[in-house]
């Protein structure tokens, strides 16, 4: 049977992905350019027995998203730069308490209110380090409307599997553009649900990890009573001021992600095999880069594109293959050089990284990238 094809906006596709993954709770506060996510889910969630709630502000929206998940519902929130800044305290709470949920950040210009209706990619480091303290981070960077759907499903799966918040780091261009999207049938994409306890409720320890580093999570209200706190805690959930235990626990959390790099990190490589020049680009800028690669290849220039669908954890292993192999590395991004620093760290000067950094609220033109490819040394 032919697949169901819909012509969708990027933000609408996020909603299709969330519903496919089994999301039944959304809490948010409207902000351009993410508002359509809230708009669509406000209409759709009540029809499937889910709940949509507009909170009084972004802080409360993040708190409610965590609360929905603690009650056992797959939960989503969507925002943009200023809202993401406000969510940071509660997002940190989500990391420490290991609450699965998905946060969509449709990036616009910043800081502060910035350029509300234009695109940006300046929240890469905020996604990684925006909340205080050491913690693992998973952030996904779709480039197409289809990927907005598929990567939202993957974000929920990773959140559920590793019991942690996951960020879908997209931008105004991908969020607002429209493309034809194949709507997956049940079974087409994997859907993962969190581990829940099977023990007697009186024996339940909410933070006693199993061999995979992840502890089963009970739904509040299901008879498993437990304590949650933003303080470092013991396996029973109650606070502890033991620094050694806190360190061991934070390292365990980081290892949940580090040890599963191969499963979490996905990249798309375009014409990299014989490439002498490598471009590293994500999100909407990767689309400009693909166009530039095609234009350059038509002129016989050996250039390829490494496009991460997972920006955090950073695709070190995938990128390191090209260290010492390519003659040039170019990083175009709509910020003043955030991922370029990471690329530099991985390439270790082999070769030096050349950036194309732009924060004028316009997408990076493929011709700008082509000129860099041709004009370099």
């Amino acid at each position, binding site marked *: 049977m032919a697949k169901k*094809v819909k*012509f969708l906006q990027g933000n609408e596709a996020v909603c299709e992905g969330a519903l496919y993954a089994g999301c039944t709770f959304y809490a948010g506060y409207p902000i351009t350019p993410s508002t359509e996510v809230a708009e669509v889910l406000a209409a759709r969630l009540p029809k499937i027995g889910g709940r949509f709630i507009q909170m009084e502000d972004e802080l409360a929206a993040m708190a409610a998203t965590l609360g929905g998940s603690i009650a056992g519902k797959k939960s989503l929130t969507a925002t943009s730069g200023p809202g993401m800044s406000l969510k940071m305290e509660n997002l940190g709470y989500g990391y420490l308490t290991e609450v699965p949920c998905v946060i969509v950040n449709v990036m616009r210009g910043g800081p502060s209110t910035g350029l509300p*209706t234009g695109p940006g990619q300046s929240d890469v480091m905020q996604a990684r380090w925006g909340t205080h303290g050491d913690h693992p981070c998973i952030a996904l960077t779709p480039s197409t409307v289809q990927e907005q759907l598929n990567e939202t499903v993957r974000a929920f799966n990773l959140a559920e599997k590793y019991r942690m918040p996951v960020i879908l780091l997209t931008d105004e261009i991908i969020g607002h553009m*429209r493309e*034809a999207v194949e709507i997956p049938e049940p079974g087409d994409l994997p859907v993962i649900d969190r581990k829940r306890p099977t023990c007697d409720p009186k024996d339940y320890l909410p933070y006693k990890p199993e061999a995979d580093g992840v502890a089963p999570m009970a739904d509040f209200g299901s008879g498993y009573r437990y304590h949650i706190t933003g303080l470092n805690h013991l396996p029973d959930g109650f606070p502890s001021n033991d620094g050694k235990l806190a360190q061991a626990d934070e390292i365990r959390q980081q290892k949940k992600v580090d040890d599963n790099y191969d499963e979490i990190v996905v990249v798309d490589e375009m014409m990299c095999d014989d490439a002498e020049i490598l471009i590293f680009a994500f999100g909407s800028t990767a689309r400009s880069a693909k166009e530039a690669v095609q234009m350059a290849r038509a002129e016989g220039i050996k250039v390829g594109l490494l496009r991460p669908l997972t920006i955090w954890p950073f695709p070190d292993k995938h990128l390191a293959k090209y260290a010492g192999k390519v003659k040039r590395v170019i990083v175009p991004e709509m910020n003043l050089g955030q991922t370029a620093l990471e690329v530099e760290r991985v390439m270790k000067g082999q070769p030096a990284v050349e950036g194309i950094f732009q924060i004028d609220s316009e*997408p990076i033109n*493929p011709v700008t990238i082509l000129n860099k490819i041709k004009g370099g040394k």
Partner: protein
Amino acid sequence: MARHLIRLSGSGGQGMITAGIILAAGASVLEGKKAIQSQSYGPEARGGASKAEVIISDEEIYYPKVMAPDVLVALTQEAADKYSKDLKQGGILILDDLMVKTAPKGDWKVYMMPIIRTAAEKVGKAMVANVVTLGALNEICGFVKPETLEQAVLSRVPKGTEELNKNAISAGIELAKAAKAK
């Protein structure tokens, strides 16, 4: 390789973005081509120059924005002046004769047509000027089959407005035929 770069512009609220969505959805979902619709607008809900861009292609489209359009529709003077700057040489410029008093100068095929007046007076609702535009645009450029355009329009408009919108498409086609005959 056939690739059409189309820019639909006017003032916020004139329905140019909806028109772009309808055209791109028709080309992609109904005819199986590759199509992308994107837009840009200011912080205001109404007014201000607004544009929708559509790319229709037989091949994968990477860069989603239109660098230099082949076709520009402008329903206001501001949009005509602002967005015609990078219209390709030999491109097509479709203007509304009520709102655009001075056609921008360039090496283009210019169609000055009573789009808004036709919508208001002949079809009976100024609101359908965007659908009149689609009828005219597609008659001139042939992006999709006429029946595709009708199906795409009808799948996006509110129930009860089907006849109104069909009339708007036909009125647009007539405008284009008359303009081409000139």
